[in-house]
């Protein structure tokens, strides 16, 4: 179980302190899928990075399975069981898909095992296992490989930062199926997804709306979803440019 207690995060922007996250508290219980939504610039990605240890809060504590992890490194948090899927998957020169999945699993897994994770995210394993994780792969392919690394890692808490960003409609439909599968096999683990997509919010146990760095709404899916449908916090389908002002995404 993950607990955020009064988390705040300040950045120094042009010599002005700006509070990106303001006194945020919530819990991700075991066996549950929590979705965080809200307008762009509301602090969602920052919150995900604070949980993974990529950023450190200005104040507040993060407790994971009873242990205060606020001051421990990214590596140690990963070892405790926190997994993180980047919004923009990182590219590497020379590192192959198989290498990345093997590193993620933390074991000397076989090619067959690695392939099974790729198949789970809808990639034909044979075509991808030897590919380099570089710009020759499309946004959707990189995204699915990113998710496959999390499946291989089997974390106690999986954090997904906008899994739908930068992918095409076909990949998006496939992604929804992957999350459905993860939801069914959640058991003692938990999932935190940052997303605007109604179809992702629809499988959440609880929805948190983050606005201006603060929790503006929080509650069970059935209570929250009807109030945010049709806003930028819950986009019904893939409407081009509906959520990204730059219009860079199909989805």
């Amino acid at each position, binding site marked *: 179980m993950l607990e955020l207690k009064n988390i705040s995060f300040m950045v120094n922007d042009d010599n002005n302190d700006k509070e990106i996250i303001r006194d945020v508290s919530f819990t991700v219980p075991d066996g549950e899928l929590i979705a965080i939504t809200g307008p762009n610039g509301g602090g969602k990605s920052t919150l995900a990075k604070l949980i993974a240890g990529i950023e450190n809060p200005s104040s507040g504590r993060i407790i994971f399975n009873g242990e205060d992890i606020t001051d421990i490194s990214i*590596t140690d948090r990963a070892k405790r069981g926190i997994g993180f899927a980047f919004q923009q998957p990182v590219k590497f*020169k020379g590192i192959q898909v198989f290498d990345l999945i093997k590193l993620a699993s*933390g074991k000397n897994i076989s090619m067959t095992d690695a392939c099974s994770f790729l198949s789970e995210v809808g990639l034909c394993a044979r075509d991808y296992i030897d590919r380099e994780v570089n710009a020759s792969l499309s946004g959707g392919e990189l995204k699915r490989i990113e998710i496959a690394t999390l499946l291989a890692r089997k974390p106690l808490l999986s954090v997904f930062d906008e899994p739908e960003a930068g992918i095409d409609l076909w990949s998006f439909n496939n992604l929804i199926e992957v999350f459905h599968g993860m939801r069914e096999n959640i058991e003692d683990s938990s999932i935190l997804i940052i997303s605007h997509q109604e179809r992702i919010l629809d499988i959440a146990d609880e929805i948190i709306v983050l606005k201006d760095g603060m929790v503006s709404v929080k509650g069970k899916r059935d209570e929250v979803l009807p109030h945010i449908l049709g806003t930028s916090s819950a986009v019904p389908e893939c409407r081009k440019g509906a959520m990204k002002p730059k219009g860079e995404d199909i989805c």
Partner: protein
Amino acid sequence: MLKLDEIQKRLLREVADLHKVPEGAYNIRSNGKSAGRESTENIEIIPREDGQGLTVRIKAGTKNESVHIPVVMTESGIKEIVYNDFYIGEDADIIIVAGCGIDNCGNQDSEHDGIHRFFVGRNARVKYVEKHYGSGEGKGKRILNPGTEVYLEENGSMEMEMVQIKGVDDTLRTTKAELKTASRLVVRERLMTHGDQRAISTYVVDLMGEGSSADVVSRSVARDSSYQKFDAKLIGNAACSGHTECDSIIMDRGRILAVPGLEANNVDAALVHEAAIGKIAGEQIIKLMTLGLTEAEAEEQIINGFLK
């Protein structure tokens, strides 16, 4: 009979992936002398009269055969220049594995300068693999100065893989190639330098024939206080295509100078160069840390992949 001690065997494994005496034609040079040699029906290895090198003749049409010519040096203070000439007959398709391993435990410099010339016949294909490796705790430097000349006849092709990852203190590599009609040269160089090492690599590729092509790519990592210079010049004298690329990671106080050069003397010459030098991207390290690796482990994986 071939007799090698444990250090020599280890060097052979490093430079030629050899665990035992190779199959096919070979010559193993150890501490300035031939330690074993074998010719085959199609591949003749003839020592030069002065003992300083070999002439290797590969018959026309020879397919799927290999030549191994590794060099190992374990005595401190040896300095040698070796001239090896390869004549590859028309339509042959072969692999040549060279490489030099120096173990210098003494205080005198050890130096091996291998001067290789390749005469590649019409339609012949050559894959050339050369690995350099140094070890030993002595104060004496391990120096390797390879000089390579490649002459490609019509429709000939040569693919060169050159690797120097560890332990060589000083290298000056010069590679020169002349390409006739429809011939093709591919170079993949991988280099890592440590400590105060210095590595200079110079290429001059002359694209003389119509339809000839060259692709010269170097990937390198400079760590500690080491220095590298990559100087690749492509000269397009006909309707040809050429690409050169230097992709480098610098760490610590490492320094790299990339000097890509293109010279087009024909309006149909298409030449491209790319050069990029930079430290490891922070996000790559962070990504691997989220998979449970420490920062140092992440760096190691990124470099291993980069030089793979």
